[in-house]
């Protein structure tokens, strides 16, 4: 076997040769046609199981409320000049929901919102819709108005059920003012960059087909 000096380094020609070897590393592997129909069936079954798990989890949570001594669940909507927004009074020991805070804490995502994440229990900063039908996963914090030069106001929208069609429409109102803005995400919920005209606590009304929900997000200057 002959050895060469240049092969001992990955620079220049050596690197090109190695890259070429990697490109050809599976040339001998025959691959059949994809069993697409079976893949689709498996995907539909997976989606069905996720829905059943979600429905079961919600039923268990509702059943557990009296056990926890919770008398009422109250949604407090943001009022004029009172920035702290949506709070869900579940019990005195329950963690505060994300609501209209500048920095949203990371928590494990709901099971129905985890597809695509490499971690089976991904912990991400997210805000759950008031009806619990959608989450806004914040890929950048804080959200800023005007947008930061360092990062985009990137938000991943994930609905509980993928039944809508057409664009995902966001009607935003700056709490305590008449300032409004409309944003659309073509193709439905998914990754988006949502810039809003002013800093402050924004009430977002969300629509996608028959899906309607709302949540609050704070943009900082």
């Amino acid at each position, binding site marked *: 076997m002959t050895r060469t000096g240049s092969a*001992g*380094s990955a620079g220049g020609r050596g690197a090109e040769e190695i890259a070429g070897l990697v490109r050809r590393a599976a040339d001998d592997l025959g691959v059949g046609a994809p069993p697409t129909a079976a893949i689709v069936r498996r995907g539909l079954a997976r989606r069905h199981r996720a829905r059943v798990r979600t429905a079961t989890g919600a039923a268990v949570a509702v059943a557990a409320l009296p056990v926890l001594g919770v008398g009422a669940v109250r949604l407090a909507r943001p009022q004029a000049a009172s920035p702290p927004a949506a709070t869900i009074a579940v019990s005195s020991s329950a963690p505060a929901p994300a609501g209209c805070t500048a920095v949203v804490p990371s928590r494990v995502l709901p099971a129905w919102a985890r597809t695509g994440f490499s971690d089976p229990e991904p912990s991400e900063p997210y805000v759950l819709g008031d009806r619990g039908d959608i989450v806004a996963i914040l890929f950048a914090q804080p959200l800023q108005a005007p947008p930061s030069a360092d990062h985009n106001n990137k938000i991943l929208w994930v609905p509980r059920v993928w039944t809508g069609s057409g664009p995902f429409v966001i009607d935003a109102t700056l709490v305590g003012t008449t300032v409004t803005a409309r944003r659309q995400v073509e193709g*439905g919920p998914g990754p988006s960059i949502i810039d809003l005209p002013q800093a402050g606590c924004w009430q977002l009304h969300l629509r996608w087909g028959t899906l309607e929900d709302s949540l609050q997000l704070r943009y900082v200057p």
Partner: protein
Amino acid sequence: MEYDRTGFEAFVAERYATMVRAAVLLGLRHADAEDAVQEAFARCFAAWPRVRAADDPQAYAFRVLLNVVRRAGRRRWTGELPHAEMSADPMAGGDPATTVPQAQSVRAALARLNRAQRQVLVLRYFVDLTEVQTARVLGIAPGTVKSRAARAMALLARDPDLVEHQVHAREEGP
């Protein structure tokens, strides 16, 4: 309902073979690789509107595949979907007398890298993703892709089996 099945089928047809081969290069046996890719595509179909709307659906699919491959390493796979159609030309890559030993040597050398280095090389040079796409799939910075790939290439360049193949490639010339 926004389930564009035709679009999904085209998405699968275009990427299936590459993803199976990539899964083999990532360390799975061939049969396990086929099943891992089928599972990855099934997960993609379960969230197809979101995949289709993603900035880079291919990167999304590979990210799901890496997750499946990682989990496949922890448990025995039992869910392969049987199918009958075989590739018309399984040796399409060239003369089996030379390509098979060389390809096997490269796979063996890749297996001697750590998982992170192998992932970068497979995505960057076998799948031919850009540095940015590779970074997006792996959830790391593009600069990390570059440095990790350089280290992995240096290790492969010193691998005795691959040194021999590099010499042969040079002797055959362009």
